[in-house]
């Protein structure tokens, strides 16, 4: 694979990439962490694996991929497929070069819109799927179903339809074996980050993760840690957004002091080399920032890359330590890689 690499220092005097490389790539990046991510472009996706192997995945027209998760010996991608009059779930398992469709969970209520699937993977095996479904975007509910390896259990209702949209579902399997889901739910005033946990076979009633407010809280990302979980999301104050981070321990959330600056948005959390990596975009000036966090969310290092792209890059730790952001190049097969340097957290 032909690779174009830029090395940037994360200094205050950030240098924008050349104009020809700006404006980013088409589509969306879905990052599982650990060097496994996909970049979707129309009806195909490029899957990059930790080994550096890249493979192309052909998709049915109308597909939007939401997640890729590593499985033992492969991966599973989950997305939604728009078809005439409806949207439905799309699951595809990759293993040893073969791609096998996984049947969608049952749809007992025959919801015309199902999407935003979140595979829950435990010890390298798919154990459940959560998704959002309903008669329409603004009448949506959260559901889940357990995967036996052969078929799906009866559908479980995690969160009934509320006063508005439920969207941006994400989730993780925690170290204690419980399952944690986070999503953004409209409470009648604004979107809030809410969560539910499945323990002993039952989902807890959805609760707000943060203090109540009347401004949007959107786009959560969650990751399991040894002690519980970390969650990051974008929180608006009515004039701008900033990234917030919270830790989940002993069944309760605690908002952490570390957060992105004003103008930071759309964080993702992935596993790094024994740590957690938080990647987010700062809009003005346009930069991408990686924070390396301890398992309790404590800031360890950060790297900042000036780049105009509005599209999320893939994130890998080159040689296990160097944070590398990757956007597709002028030719898809020729990615633009930007290596950043860690700096101590201020």
């Amino acid at each position, binding site marked *: 694979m032909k690779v174009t690499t830029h090395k940037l220092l994360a200094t205050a005097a950030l240098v924008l990439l050349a104009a020809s490389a700006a404006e980013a790539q088409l589509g969306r990046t879905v990052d599982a962490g650990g060097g496994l991510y996909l970049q979707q472009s129309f009806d195909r996706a490029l899957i990059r694996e930790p080994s550096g192997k890249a493979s192309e995945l052909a998709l049915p027209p109308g597909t939007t991929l939401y997640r890729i998760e590593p499985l033992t010996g492969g991966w599973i991608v989950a997305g939604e497929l728009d078809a005439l009059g409806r949207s439905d779930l799309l699951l595809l398992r990759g293993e040893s070069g073969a791609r096998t469709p996984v049947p969608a969970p049952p749809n007992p209520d025959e919801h015309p819109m199902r999407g935003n699937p979140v595979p829950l993977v435990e010890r390298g095996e798919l154990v459940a799927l959560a998704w959002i479904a309903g008669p329409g975007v603004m009448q949506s509910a959260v559901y889940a179903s357990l995967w036996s390896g052969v078929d799906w259990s009866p559908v479980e209702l995690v969160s009934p339809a509320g006063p508005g949209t439920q969207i941006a579902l994400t989730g993780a399997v925690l170290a204690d074996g419980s399952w944690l889901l986070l999503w953004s739910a409209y409470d009648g005033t*604004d979107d809030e980050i809410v969560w539910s946990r499945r323990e002993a076979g039952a989902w807890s009633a959805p609760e707000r993760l943060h203090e109540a407010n009347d401004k949007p809280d959107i786009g959560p990302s969650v990751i399991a840690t040894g002690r519980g979980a970390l969650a990051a999301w974008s929180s608006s104050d009515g004039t701008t957004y900033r990234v917030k981070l919270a830790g989940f321990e002993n069944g309760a959330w605690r908002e952490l002091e570390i957060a992105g600056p004003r103008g930071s948005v759309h964080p993702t959390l992935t596993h790094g080399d024994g740590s957690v990596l938080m990647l987010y975009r700062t809009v003005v000036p346009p930069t991408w920032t990686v924070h390396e966090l301890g398992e309790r969310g404590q800031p360890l290092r950060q790297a900042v890359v000036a780049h105009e792209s509005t599209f999320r890059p893939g994130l890998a730790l080159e040689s296990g330590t160097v944070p590398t952001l990757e956007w597709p190049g002028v*030719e898809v097969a020729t990615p633009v890689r930007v290596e950043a340097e860690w700096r101590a957290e201020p």
Partner: protein
Amino acid sequence: MKRHLLLGMLLTLAAGSPLAAANRWLVYGDSISAGTSWPANCGICPVIFDCTGGCDHNTQATRDQCGHARRLDTWLGGGTANYVKNEGVGGEDTAQGLIRFPTEMNNNCAGSPGECIAVLLMHGTNDMAATMPPVSPESARDNLSAMIDVAKGRNVDVLLMSIVRKVYDMNNTKWLAYRNLILELASTKNLQSVDPYTPLCNDNWACYNRNYWVDQANSVPQGPTDCTDPGEGDNNLGHLDPDGYDVLTNLIKAAFPASAPASPAPTSPMGDIGNTTPDFVWPDVATGRWYELKVDGSPSTTWWEGAAVCTGGICTVNPGTTLSLGSHTWQVRGRNLRGLGAWSALKNFVIWATPGTPVGSSPIGTYHDPDPPTPPSSWEPYTWSMPANASVYDLTVSNSGGPVLQQSFTSSVCAGSTCSASPGVGLAQGSYSWTVRARNPGATGAASAPRAFGVVGPPGTATPVGPTGELFEMAPRYEWLEAPGATEYDLEVKDSGGNVDFQANGLLASSVCSGGGCSYVGTVLSDPDGYTFNVRGRNAAGAGPLSSPGVDFTIIECVDDTPRDLHELQPSPIVNPPKEVVYCGALSAPVSMSTYTVEPSGDLTIHTRDGFTAFDGFSVNSGGKLTIRSP
């Protein structure tokens, strides 16, 4: 010569720059606004399928030549007078758009040069398309709302555009959720809106017309400078091709009024006023969406949205700026999506200082007037302190029923620090209060604190009630009803010859009157005779009228006051009795009526001093007169 050449060059440079004093419209949004697209086989190369003058989309000049921005710029005349600037950024969702928006407003709408007319806001497609984490329709709406507030806070109008549909959202379910909230927001924010749904439709795929979209999946550009139109097709992310931009641009054009608003006709302030922070009022003009004031030649630093300041066709704005006293001018002009209207004609006004508040000094208290309401009134003139900035004084005298006298005086009634004016109008008896208010041609001050006073005239007519009839007492008790307002009374008794036989003046009402009635025992009259009693009231204002008519009474002489039996006095039969028998003594019970006869028939009158119980044939009048009727 060199200086002129340099100046000319500078002017030329300024005129050649699209930023020079140009009215500006910002096309703000994502790739649809930017006019870019990304073919499937092209990773990082945004290809501008719809641009003139090059494909390098990373320069402002090229961005401005893309999509509906370029078309509108051409339509509006472009160049130095009007400049449609493209601030679209591909891939952006409303959250990122909200973060970026204040910076773009600072860069483009921070005042000079030129005027920022409107933002053509079209955002939310990537919220729906989940380019980043999907953003809900509600949050997209909230983010757009915040952007609109920023624009309005900078006096910039917003044309809110709903988003184009998501390809493969075949039943438009997702798209409609976003689109409907955006259009609701436009209504809530009183914005003009553009909804490209129907015009970009045909009957395929639940409203999708392939003629208007690029076929990105099948295009194979040769790099970022390949401007080849990849052709029309179905496989795309909802990016418009040149035909699609023509449709979208025509929709935007339709939202634009045919012209900038007409020049308004200022209403007020005009002439003389007294308010240093006046309201500025003018009739709303057709298609005017925003208004700007210019006071004394200086444009206001803000624009006012017509929807917020105009009601019932009348616009009212108070800039809150304190103007100096003296002469001023003002103008107003409107603005709509098409641009700035012409300034109105100048309106002149003069601000006067508000006069101070006078302090009234007199009249105050009670005044006695011998002949109210005939002027001149004894309590005039009205006097008050002279406040600053006054040229006219408005005097108001009121009673409980409201104003009874309103009269204005010029400052000629003032001398030194005091003003003194006599209206020359008499007031009837009663209680009054008065105030005076200073004014000048532009302003009216506060009224003085009310001063109370009363007008008291001579008392009314007293009414004599006794004595009447016949009586023996030579010093009778005179009785009369009180006269309103009287503090003293004068009594007068005349005999049958018209001569004053008794007179008492200056009887204090407090001594002789009680409960509305008055009485007084006079001195002995001269003779048994007929008399007439009259009385008049008096107070500090003078004497009231003498009662008219008086009461008449007759003093009868008592010739026998020995107590005796009536029968003894007049044994029966009473023969040839005198017509009148006067008896002044006590009279014991009479004998039977039957023992009395009167011969010949006729009246017999017996006068007694004491009361006598009436019985058949007898009656006793109130004066103690016993009348024995003849059988």
